[in-house]
Every structure is written in structure tokens, then in C-alpha cells.
């Protein structure tokens, strides 16, 4: 029994608004420090994840997960010798 897009938006608008505010406040906290972020790589990962949220592709949750994931090497058994 899937909900309609209208129902999802109506039920989850405020929750999502609150989550976005948390992210915005996080960036404000980081911005208080003129020397910049201690880990540019982590900051770039977060920025890339934010870009996924607003692009026109689907499977956003899975794509964000993969962005934060180590790569899989199909030859791993040869590498380990097992």
C-alpha cells in the first residue's frame, strides 16, 4: 500500500526540514573556524553527499552509502592468498 508523493511530502515535510536545519547548523559551526576544516577529505565527502540529495537521479540513499564506502576489489582473494 504505497503512499502517494503528496502524502509523503505532507507527512514528512517538517521532519525533513528539521534534518536539513541540523546539517545547515553543522556547516555554520564549522564555519566559525577561519583556518578551515581539519579534514578536507571528509568535508569534500559531505559536500558530494549533499550534491546527491539535489541531483535528478534516483537511489539517493544507496548512492550516498556507496560514496562513503571503501571500494571492493574482485581480486581480493588473490591479494590475500586465500
Amino acid at each position, binding site marked *: *500500500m*504505497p*503512499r502517494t508523493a503528496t502524502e509523503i511530502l505532507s*507527512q514528512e515535510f517538517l521532519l525533513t526540514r528539521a534534518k536539513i536545519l541540523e546539517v545547515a547548523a553543522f556547516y555554520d559551526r564549522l564555519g566559525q573556524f577561519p583556518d578551515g576544516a581539519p579534514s578536507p577529505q571528509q568535508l569534500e565527502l559531505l559536500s558530494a553527499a549533499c550534491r546527491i540529495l539535489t541531483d535528478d537521479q534516483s*537511489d539517493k*540513499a*544507496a548512492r550516498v*552509502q*556507496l560514496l*562513503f*564506502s*571503501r*571500494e*571492493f*576489489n*574482485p581480486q*581480493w*582473494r588473490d591479494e*590475500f*592468498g*586465500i
Partner: protein
Amino acid sequence: MDYVDPHIHMVSRTTDDYETLAKMGCVAVSEPAFWAGFDRGTVDSFRDYFRQLTDTEPKRAAQYGIQHYTWLCINAKEAENVSLSREVIAMIPEFLDKPNVLGIGEIGLNKNTKNESTIFLEHVELAVKYQQQILIHTPHLEDKYQGTRMILDMLCHDSRIERQRVMVDHVEEHTIGPVLEAGFWAGMTLYPITKCTPQRAADMIEKYGPERLMANSAGDWGPSKPTAIPDLIFELRRRGHPEAAIRRVVYDNPQQFFSQSKSYHFAPRA
């Protein structure tokens, strides 16, 4: 609604939690062996832990009408110690005939190392030798995708594995597809911050359907909520899912999966 929590570490919870679970509708739990928060030093530490899992916890659960089942192994984190792991694996058969043992678990990977992989394969050998079901832990956060693919790689290269008797746990959006497509059961762990929320679990149920899919709390000594499954039930109801569909995920599916073990003798509530 009556439900089963297929993955919860009750040794880490208070007796009050058993009472709360019972009041929320929990009728059975399955408790995989896991990391105690520190590395144990001897095989006898594990022998005592397995006594706790097969003797003490079933009695504690029974006080509240909850049926307690368990899985035995040395977890992936301690599998870095290969010699100790081999001693534990050699000792596990002492406990396989205990009445609440469902199989070998939660085996898996943690940091996806050679030692962890070696011990994973030796656990699989043990399970095959004793015809045991398998419950699998997949790694956390950035290691999950790589580790899950490695685990599937090892399992799918072994023709002796009966995939319908294996559950791959802690799946998330990027790992659930490969697990289900390969024919294994998948477990979604409702665990704050590092795993999955009830809302995201509901999304995955809607996307993949209820076939071979379960949800659990993995309640343990870390930040976790032992009553997370009622939260999922509430979320699915809020979205308008019929009661029978919800019950399939939180009650019927665990029964179907566990009933493949000769030790599973679940008695429904009268």
C-alpha cells in the same frame, strides 16, 4: 502485535529489558555470539560465555514468557587472533546439541582483513560439517560494502552452502540488493547512527518486498534500543501497511527461517 527479535544481545541488557520486551509483544529472541567490548584471552572465556547463552539466558527470558535461542562463534573482531579462534571453533561442537542453539553466528568480517576472512571460512566449514544454519555479521560504515561483497564472494563460491539457511545481517540500502539477489536471507538492523532507522527499513521493505527479509534491534551494550522492532511496526502502520504484511516481516519470516534448524521448537502464544 506479537513479534520475534532475530538478533539481540540480551547478555548486555537488564532483566527489566526482558519485561519491557514482553510487554511490547516480543515472544522470542535469537542471540548471536558477539564481541563483549574487550578481547577475551582464553578459550575458557568463550566456554563460559556459551554456557551463559545456552543455559542462563533461556531461563532469564522464560521468566517473562520469551523463548530464547542462540548462535555460537568467535566474532570477527576477535578473529584477528587466529590461534585463539581455532581453539574456540574446535570447542563449539560441545554446545551444538544444546536445545536453544540454532547455528553458527554471528560470523563475518569487521575490517575485512586476511585473518578475519580465514576464520570466516573455517566457521563455514564447521557449519557445513555439522549441518548448521549460519547468521552473518557485515561490517560497519565505510567497510560494509566491501566486506559484504567479500562475504558473498566466499559463500557463493562454495556449492555446499544452502543459501536459504543463511542470513546476512545489517544490510543497508547499498547491500540489500546483492544479498537478496544471491538467494540469502537479509536482516535489517534498527540501530541508531551506524546502521538503519525504522523509516529507512520501511523504505527497503517497500522497495524489495517482504520475501526473505527480517528486522532486528541488535540491542547490546552500545547505544541501541531493544524495542526498535515495535518502532518499525509503528512506522509501517503509519504508512498504511496491512497488519498481515507487517506480521510477515516481524513474526512469520523469523519463524520460517529458524524452523530450518532442528533446535527450533517455537510454541506460539496460546
